[in-house]
């Protein structure tokens, strides 16, 4: 082919990269031979794209109807590696197809359209597309689509492996021991005990599976129905992978399979019902400082700390709440993430009533805990806000261990929130929310070091760059981007495109919640971010992103984007997974969790691990490696971010978190 076209469109990519195709490995020639399913009702485009893909040495199957594509996929589960689909099709909306594929087959899907409007691209992100191409598509854009496949495989595999190893090795009962960490009694206990149990159960599984190539589970319609039945039987709140697995009683199905599918499903449900659902979850957990809710998933806390992008928080909370506790009793919808951030009470939040706005959900949520990609400016803004929040949150923090846990989160969250608020200045409702978490986070870091007038910051926060719709589709612009002020971005804080992916994904939150119970991991990262933020506005972005990602858990089916290690950072809330799709972000989040778990080997790990197990255990380790300073999503892979975050946390923790027990979050190295 190369000779024919006179040029080789395919770079000699590493052939052996985690190419764990469903038994179909073209390792040596990878990415040549990548099996692409092309769906577009326009015959002209179909012909052109087919030719281009063939020029890239891919194996192309084209069809002009979505239904046909779906049945092809169902008949031949492992017959394709990636799907490219148009958005506007007569028989089925491209996004719907995307959802189906995500739920049933878990394949990376790239959306395309002549429409490059932000909303559409955002939709792609929220629905889990791993990329979004604008027509007319050029061959260069197709050359690298293999990365999505690799990323996805890698993440799956990694999660798989990690969960196995982590669970086996790292599941320490520390969680329960760490009052701070698992503050939330119920959550913590629940988590830790659950986790341990899971560990035991899963260890066996893991042992076998981790050594094997992770076979891709094909979620057939029947299987999915079994799954849904099990979930309904358990109740969405209580539907945990382990139980679902038991109920389904399908031989060969692992908990991880179920967990990741659950994430996606949650995402899907969330999408159906709107974001509002999540905030409550997150909020609840978060809000109840008193509750042990902070427990494992103290997503809220995380969110509060700004580490968790509000959205992620929501998601996490939703997930976590379902599990750990509804204690918060404040079934705040996701929207209330802000509340969460406000951590204990809206008043804390900046004292603004904004927290109440949390109910606004999404918008605020985004900002809330999820320091999604906030641009430096934004971050800066947040910082300020966070700082002010920090002050406010301080009281919250003092609540016992929980507080401590939360603090980090709060701090972090506060920061993001601050930012968010800043961004939203106009959107009062939104801004405060965002700020709250941030402020909180800020608090944790330096205890209100940043409590500078948030308001002052708002202008800055407005980070125009918020590119919710980054082409990278990583726009996690959580719907939370309420920041009305922000230029149409859904995610005000999301300054970095990468992070944007975090924001919109409410789905993340859910997934996160479910998985990350309390995303303990996030919290720590959040703190780090706070610190980072304080030090560098950029960090916010990363953190946000990280947070966002984390919460979103890869379930967002952000296919492959999690890899953007940035997502890890995102977890932190700051990672503006700019480049990464939500998946990345979610993964990051998880990874963050994971990494945190790993790195910190603390309670948080436990929590996170359990959560993350399905999710992205991605590169959390990596994060630790990278210097926090680089928290630019673009530059960091999730892992890097994570490591960076973690490092920062460590660094920061000792210095600043004296008051806040980050430990609660089990931020690995944060000496408390």
């Amino acid at each position, binding site marked *: 082919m190369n000779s024919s076209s006179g040029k080789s469109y395919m770079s000699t990519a590493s052939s052996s990269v985690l190419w764990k195709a469903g038994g179909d490995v073209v390792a040596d020639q990878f990415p040549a031979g990548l099996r692409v399913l092309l769906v577009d009702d*326009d015959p002209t485009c179909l012909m052109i794209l087919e*030719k281009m893909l063939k020029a890239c040495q891919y194996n192309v199957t084209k069809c002009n109807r979505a239904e046909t594509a779906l049945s092809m996929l169902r008949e031949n589960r492992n017959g394709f590696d990636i799907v490219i689909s148009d958005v*506007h099709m007569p028989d089925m909306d491209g996004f719907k197809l995307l959802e189906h594929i995500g739920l049933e087959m878990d394949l990376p899907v790239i959306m395309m359209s002549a429409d490059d409007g932000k909303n559409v691209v955002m939709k792609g992100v929220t629905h889990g597309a791993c990329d979004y191409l604008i027509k007319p598509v050029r061959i260069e854009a197709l050359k690298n689509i293999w990365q999505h496949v690799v990323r996805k495989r890698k993440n799956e595999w990694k999660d798989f492996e990690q969960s196995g190893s982590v669970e086996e090795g790292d599941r320490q009962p520390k969680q329960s021991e760490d009052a701070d960490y698992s503050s939330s009694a119920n959550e913590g206990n629940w988590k830790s005990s659950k986790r341990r149990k899971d560990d035991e159960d899963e260890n066996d599984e893991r042992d076998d599976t981790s050594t094997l190539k992770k076979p891709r589970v094909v979620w057939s319609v029947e299987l999915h129905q079994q799954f849904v039945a099990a979930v309904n039987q358990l109740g969405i709140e209580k539907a945990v992978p382990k139980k679902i697995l038991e109920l389904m009683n399908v031989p060969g199905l692992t908990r991880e399979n179920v967990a990741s599918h659950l994430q996606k499903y949650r995402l899907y449900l969330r999408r159906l019902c709107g974001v509002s659902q999540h905030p409550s979850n997150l909020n609840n957990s978060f809000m109840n400082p008193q509750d042990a809710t902070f427990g494992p998933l103290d997503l809220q806390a995380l969110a509060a700390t700004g580490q968790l992008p509000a959205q992620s928080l929501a998601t996490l909370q939703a997930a976590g709440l379902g599990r750990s506790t509804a204690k918060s009793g404040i079934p705040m919808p996701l929207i209330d993430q802000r509340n969460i951030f406000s951590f204990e009470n809206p008043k804390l939040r900046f004292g603004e009533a904004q927290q109440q706005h949390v109910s606004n959900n999404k918008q605020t949520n985004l900002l809330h805990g999820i320091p999604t990609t906030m641009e430096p400016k934004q971050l800066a803004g947040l910082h300020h806000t966070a700082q002010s929040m920090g002050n406010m949150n301080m009281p919250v923090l003092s609540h016992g261990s929980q507080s401590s846990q939360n603090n980090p989160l709060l701090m972090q969250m506060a920061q993001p929130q601050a930012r968010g608020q800043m961004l939203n200045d106009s959107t009062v409702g939104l801004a405060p929310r965002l700020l709250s978490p941030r402020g909180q986070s800020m608090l944790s870091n330096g205890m209100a070091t940043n409590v500078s007038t948030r308001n002052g910051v708002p202008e800055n926060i407005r980070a125009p760059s918020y590119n919710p719709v980054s082409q990278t589709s990583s726009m996690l612009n959580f719907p939370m981007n309420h920041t009305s002020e922000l230029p149409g971005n859904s995610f005000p804080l999301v300054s970095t495109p990468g992070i944007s992916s975090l924001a919109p994904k409410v789905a993340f939150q859910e997934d996160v919640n479910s998985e990350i119970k309390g995303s303990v991991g996030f919290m720590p990262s959040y703190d780090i971010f706070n610190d980072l933020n304080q030090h560098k506005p950029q960090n916010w972005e990363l953190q946000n992103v990280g947070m966002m990602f984390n919460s979103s858990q890869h379930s967002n089916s952000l296919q492959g984007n999690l890899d953007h290690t940035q997502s890890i950072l995102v977890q932190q809330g700051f990672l503006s997974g700019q480049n990464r799709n939500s998946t990345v972000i979610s993964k990051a989040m998880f990874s963050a969790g994971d990494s945190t778990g790993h790195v910190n080997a603390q309670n948080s790990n436990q929590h996170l691990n359990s959560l993350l197990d399905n999710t992205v255990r991605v590169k959390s380790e990596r994060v630790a490696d990278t210097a926090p300073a680089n928290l630019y999503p673009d530059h960091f892979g999730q892992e890097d971010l994570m490591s960076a975050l973690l490092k920062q946390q460590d660094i920061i923790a000792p210095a600043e978190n004296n008051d806040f027990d980050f430990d609660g979050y089990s931020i690995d190295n944060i000496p408390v």
Partner: protein
Amino acid sequence: MERNPMRRQLASMRKSLFDQGYLDEQFMELEQLLDDANPNFVEEVVTLYYRDSARLILNLDRALERRPLDFSKLDGLMHQFKGSSSSIGAKKVKAESTLFREYCKSGNAEGCMRTFQQLKKEYATLRKKLETYFQLARQIGPMESANRPK
């Protein structure tokens, strides 16, 4: 060699298509896909385009006859048309499509109709030009392979 003047003619024809804004770089993308196995790929795509888009043009014509105008439907149809047109690099046609959609969004019936007429003109003009171009290219093609040293 006879080819040379024809080649030159073809080249200048091609150049003017670009210079006059009938085609944009997407067309070049298509040209890059030419290979020995599909030497007439671009022509095939363009042919397919005109065949398929004729249907869209027809639907648009019909939709524009209705009263009152269904702007969202018009916009939807034009969106498809625009996608196709941009895929082959039909620059002017694409521009008219975009303008048409703007009018749809603002509910400007007069603007829509006017633009559509203009669009059809550009569409037809481009078709003629490309037909001529491909004809010439085909003449050169066989000569080329015939004369190519084996």
